[in-house]
């Protein structure tokens, strides 16, 4: 059906590698997000799938149709790919009404007038915009335009739904609502979807899987939970949420899936084992600020990791405080609801929140 397969996709401009050998398989009906900072190649990849950007090598296949094959010289033009692409700016044609915008792809497919009308109305009902069929795009709000753009894409039943940061132009509250609504709609239609965003919260909330990209490569491809709790490297650990990095050396692996790391100051802590790390090699231990608990008094000794530190700064975030600590020669950020007065504090975190990554 509409399984998307990308093999070794590359886009080079001379020495610059906008996409550097990406391979992905997206299952039928799956919601996959390409997540990364600007310039990581996520939009280039999306446009390469749509046919609006020509890669320099690799293969793109949907079902049994090859869209692009660098070696065999196959390049299907965008109009023959049957991909539905929603642009960041929505790209609604300003000289056409909502109705005419939706009719355009159907006219090209020579759908009869009655059937066209039926399909347009059902697509508009799907996005709850059926009352606005006669309006022009400039008469709609941003959120409404975004829905119409989606309806225009869905009306011709594309084999793939490609979304390029479709929510980034909405205000914060609307974005959260649109996010839930879009996710629910995607599941209902069971349409294979590639979603491009730089917003980690959107990616975590909506995706079946996330492909985290950096500098033209996919650095981690996993479920949202796994990307968050088991980042594959320092880049992912810091880009998704944020992380403190403690420098140390892997001492040995425990039988229970844990490991022991000796930090630079000599303190030994317990962490999760990372299969790619050798015993004895230099590592970073990533700990998220929200996983660090602070206390003024020394907690009772138990299995948690314990650091002693000094508070060097504090900012009020509304619901919580964020503290900057100095612990063992490293600065650490930690978040807590408590207001701490004395500079000396004890910071504790669970071994399962201490992720070992290669520096």
């Amino acid at each position, binding site marked *: 059906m509409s399984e998307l397969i990308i093999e070794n996709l590359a886009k080079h401009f001379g020495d610059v590698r906008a996409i550097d050998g990406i391979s992905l398989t997206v299952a039928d009906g799956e919601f996959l997000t390409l997540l990364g900072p600007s310039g990581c190649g996520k939009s280039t990849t999306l446009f390469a799938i749509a046919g609006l950007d020509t890669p320099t090598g690799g293969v793109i296949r949907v079902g049994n149709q090859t869209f692009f094959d660098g070696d065999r010289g196959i*390049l299907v033009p965008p109009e023959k790919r*049957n991909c*539905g692409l929603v642009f960041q700016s929505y790209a609604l044609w300003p000289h056409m009404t909502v109705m005419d915008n939706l009719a355009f792809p159907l006219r*090209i497919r020579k759908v009869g007038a009655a059937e066209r009308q039926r399909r347009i109305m059902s697509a508009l009902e799907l996005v709850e915009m059926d009352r606005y069929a006669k309006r022009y795009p400039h008469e709609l709000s941003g959120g409404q335009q975004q829905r119409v753009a989606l309806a225009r894409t869905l009306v011709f039943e594309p084999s793939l739904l490609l979304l390029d940061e479709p929510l980034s132009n909405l205000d914060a509250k609307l974005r959260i609502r649109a996010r839930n609504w879009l996710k629910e709609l995607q599941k209902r239609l069971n349409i294979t979807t590639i979603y491009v965003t730089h917003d980690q919260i959107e990616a975590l909330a909506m995706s079946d899987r996330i492909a985290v990209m950096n500098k033209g490569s996919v650095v981690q491809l996993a479920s949202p939970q796994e990307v968050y709790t088991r980042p594959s490297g320092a880049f992912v650990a810091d880009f998704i949420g944020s992380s403190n990095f403690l420098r140390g050396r892997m001492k040995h692996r425990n039988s229970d899936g844990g490991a022991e790391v000796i930090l630079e100051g000599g303190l030994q802590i317990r962490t999760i084992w990372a299969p790619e790390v050798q015993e004895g090699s230099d590592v970073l231990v990533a700990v998220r600020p929200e996983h660090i608990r602070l206390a003024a008094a020394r907690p009772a000794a138990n299995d948690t990791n314990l650091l002693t530190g000094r508070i060097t700064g504090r900012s009020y975030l509304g619901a919580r405080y964020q503290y900057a600590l100095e612990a063992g020669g490293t600065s650490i950020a930690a978040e807590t609801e408590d207001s701490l007065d004395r500079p000396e504090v004890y910071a504790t975190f669970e071994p399962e929140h201490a992720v070992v990554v290669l520096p």
Partner: protein
Amino acid sequence: MASIPMPTLSGGDDRFSRALIIQSLMSVATVILVAAPLAPILWQSLVDRPLYEAGGLFTMDNYARLFGDAGFYDVIWNSALLALSTTLVAGVLGVAFAIFLERTNLPGRRILRSLALWPMYISQLVIAFSWFMMYGPSGYVTLLSQQWFGSALWNLYSIPGMAVVAGTGLAPLVYLFCASSAKRIDATLEDAGRMMGAGSLRVIWSISIPLMRPAIIYSALLTFISSLEMLSVPLVFGRPVGLEFFTTYLYSQGLGGITPDYGLLGAAAAVLLAIISLLLVLQGLLLRKAGRFVTVKGKAQRQKLADLGPARWPLFAFFLVYNIAILAIPLAGIALRSVTTFLTPLMAPFDLLTTQNFTLIFAYPAYVRSITNSLLISALGGAIATAFVALVTLVVHRSEFRWRRQLEYVALYPRAIPGIVAGIGLFWAMLLLPVVNLLHGTIWILVLAFTMRSIPTAFGAISPALLQIGQELDKSARSCGADWWTTSRMIVLPLLKPAIFGAYVLLFLSFLKEYSSAVFLFSPGSEIIGTTMLSFWANGDTGPVAALSVIQLVITALFVFVARLLLRSHQDV
């Protein structure tokens, strides 16, 4: 959601897609159009006999004869001197207009701004004739000044005199480019100068004008080229006293003798082409580093007008007198001449009133035809040319066509082809190619020549608007299943309508004014207003010339009026 399956898009051979066919056809047509006048000229300049004769042998003799002729050096010297002094006049006036009309609180700026552009709407031929009738050696105003001061204070039969006629006519060009640059100067840059103790005038001189440098360089070279290409002023004011220029040289070499010297004509035309091409290259090189003059950053721009203080009234008076002298008097003069038998300060014009100038024109089919031909060429030819260039612009800016960058160079090259050279070249193309010769005696050869000459103008009018239309609008149409042509036809061209209409207005007016490429191409049946005026002028019949000028001016005024109305009511398109 569907009960009936969605029809799939039929595949097709991508190698010969509709898009590629249209793009290739447009490119080939552009190349042929631009090459049609050039190739015969270059060929003729290098063979030893007229190009229609078989067995031509390669020779450099034509160039040797051209540069062996002492008169040709006079031609080069005169042309350079006239172009330089015209550029100086137009440059000083244009920059002053830009500064005073855009950046100061001069009274009556709005009206003065539109007056400053008027000479652009008027044919250079009409400008030359009307100046001749008023300020020429026996012109009305010249004779008046002789009565009052004893002798004429000016002599238009001289290079400085011609530079004033041509320079005031070309000043709008400089003003147009410098005005948009002057408007974009960020006032904070000027305020910074004022904070450091510079006075208003000092700031204009040391900060504002240097910031306009790219626009000044660009428009100065454009003026220089335009005055090299100009035929009307040299013809009217230079030839009577034996001053020869490039264009009059080509004109007399080509039309003067019974059998023109083809080789010499070809070589002279090729030299003029080479000079102008070099100037365009120079223009590109000078503006390559224009980045340091970028004054536009984002949208928020503060605009402040310099206060001229009490000097504003004398300056206003100057602008008023200027417009009366260069616009009102010549135009009133030519209008008066068209309804009188004679125009002299010695007799009251009301005693000489007549309608015979107009009745003469409307009595002869050939004269009437020159008016209907002009209208047809402007209205229909202008529309065809606009459609053609709009498509070329689409191929250049909005396609995956392999040679689109090269196409842009070809499309912009006609800037380097003077009208008279284009006329000679196409005339020879008619002699050489039977296909082109089919157009002989029809207005279509003129439409072809005018279209070729106007590609850069229309391209320049449409391109900025096209670049402002977001790429994602066509990209989304493509991903909806529309091919390049459907996307262009249903999305891009409809959005481009205002710019296309603007380009049509420009082309209508320039086709109406154009004459220099027509002098070699017209023949009985395909006369236009310009060529008919030139033949009346050659016979010394200034009355019908004035009548035709008035007719052309009235058509221009009506067209501009209607176009403005349409533009205003369709602002939302």
